């Protein structure tokens, strides 16, 4: 059976959920071979094997942390040469897409980014994408070379599929030309204790209607009652009420959770582009004409400062 390379996104060996989703999708096309770059490959291999990785190609080199992107492209190219895969899958993070692009160019292959589904097809993998602010769904495939596809988080439910997950060392030579961009310092983002925005099953977002940074705890309290991530519209971020890292929308993060709750968000195209593929959409807004209500499964026309705290209390009561 053909092998499929899966690039592992992890923090010090703690594998992030989108990688497990990639393994699930990879099994539709062939046998997943995971590529783990950096420390603690043995830790990662356990969970990768549980999710279908027949093999984990591991390489650790200081260059991965010292220089931006390019050394990882060298490593993935070494894995590609070692395996001759039927496809290469990567997570659709900013870095994942950059690595994918450079790899595709080097191996003479086409690239598809931001797939929301991947299936086997007669002429190779078929990727589904959601385009034009999710107003269209396209099916595409790569016509030259080995398909390189990046997949958005929450595109598949990770499935357990026990496989060997044997760790093999991958020999990597980092080219001098890959040491062009030095990472002078690195400050890990402080954990809020909440789920990651792009990975969360539930997202609660606040917008202009939240009316100030001092009111965002109302949104956070609802999020915490549901075990959700907190998002913000561009208006709220531009006003300085919430960090940009939490921005949902075309220029922020694109999310596709099971449940999206928009509070005080009108639903401008910019915001819709980032959340329209959410499975269930709920909105709370004073303005009954707000475009967000065109998208919702359930909408409440009302003051978020009345509705959200009541909802939070109800959630807490019902959850006991």
């Amino acid at each position: 059976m053909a092998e499929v390379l899966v690039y592992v996104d992890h923090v010090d060996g703690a594998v992030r959920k989108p990688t497990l989703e990639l393994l699930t999708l990879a099994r539709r096309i062939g046998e997943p071979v995971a590529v783990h770059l950096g420390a603690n490959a043995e830790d990662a291999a356990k969970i990768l094997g549980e999710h279908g990785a027949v093999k984990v190609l591991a390489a650790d080199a200081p260059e991965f942390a010292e220089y931006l992107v390019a050394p990882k492209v060298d490593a993935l190219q070494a894995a590609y040469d070692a395996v001759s895969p039927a496809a290469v899958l990567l997570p659709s993070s900013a870095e994942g897409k950059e690595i994918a692009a450079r790899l595709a160019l080097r191996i003479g292959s086409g690239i598809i980014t931001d797939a929301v589904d991947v299936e086997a097809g007669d002429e190779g993998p078929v990727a589904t994408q959601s385009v034009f602010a999710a107003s269209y769904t396209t099916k595409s495939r790569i016509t030259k070379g080995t398909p390189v596809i990046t997949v958005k988080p929450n595109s598949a439910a990770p499935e357990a599929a026990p496989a060997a997950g044997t760790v093999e060392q991958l020999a990597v030579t980092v080219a001098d030309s890959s040491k062009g961009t030095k990472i002078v310092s690195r400050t890990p983002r402080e954990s809020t204790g909440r789920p990651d925005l792009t990975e969360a099953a539930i997202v609660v977002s606040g917008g202009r209607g939240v009316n100030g940074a001092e009111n965002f705890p109302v949104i956070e309290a609802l999020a915490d009652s549901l075990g959700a991530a907190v998002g913000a519209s561009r208006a709220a971020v531009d006003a300085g009420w919430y960090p940009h890292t939490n921005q949902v929308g075309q220029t922020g993060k694109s999310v596709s959770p099971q449940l999206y709750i928009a509070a005080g968000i009108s639903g401008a195209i910019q915001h819709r582009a980032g959340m329209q593929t959410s499975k269930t959409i709920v909105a709370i807004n004073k303005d009954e004409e707000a475009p967000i209500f065109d998208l919702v499964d359930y909408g409440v026309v009302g003051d978020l400062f009345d509705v959200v705290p009541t909802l939070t209390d109800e959630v807490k009561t019902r959850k006991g």
Partner: protein
Amino acid sequence: MSLRIVVCVKYVPDATGDRHFAEDLTVDRDDVDGLLSELDEYAVEQALQIKEAADDAEITVLTVGPEDANDALRKALSMGADKAVHVEDDDLHGTDALGTSLVLAKAIEKTGYDLVVCGMASTDGTMGVLPALLAERLNVPQVTQLSEVSVADGKVTGRRDGDTATEQLEAALPAVVSVTDQSGEARYPSFKGIMAAKKKPVESLDLEDLEIEADEVGLEGAWTKVDGAAERPARTAGTIVKDEGEGGKQLAEFLAGQKFI
């Protein structure tokens, strides 16, 4: 010696318009107004700030696209770029990201550069891969996704806010930079700027000028193929209630019914 800055910009269909596909499954450009991609305005702005901080710098704004794409160049020129290069050729219709990166790389090399500045992604395709592709093709450092950028002493430095960390980056010129929408508001063209832009030179190049064969680009040369595009079915009308004191409870009931609580 003068710092040569090339800013890559894209002319995109207005996202607030009704965007759709043409019969050949390329983006229909006839049915919706185009404009300079908003995310590229940030690139022009940062290039202008880098120029203002430099002793001697010149900004060339570069685009690949049909005749109308000239509008995007004029906007950048009216913001303050010095000159423009427009790559236009009928054979470019349907070119994908890999093909576009080839055309841009050849045009950048022909123009001459010390620094290439791009937006983080286009607002239509939203792939965000072009800066990395350009760095790979030009074999220079990529300093991408920057929320802050500065150039001094032949080096570019910047801040990259990633998913899990914030990084400070540094690379020697020549380099390819991309900037995010957090890099700083783009300026509005002044009346003087708009008038001056009319007189600024726009060089026109075609594939022959760049020594690119027609079959390397366009729909035929594309490395990917769109087999189908379907308009997303309109969402069935959801339930909308007015809050008269019970809104929060009704919503909780709905969420419980959907097994979210």
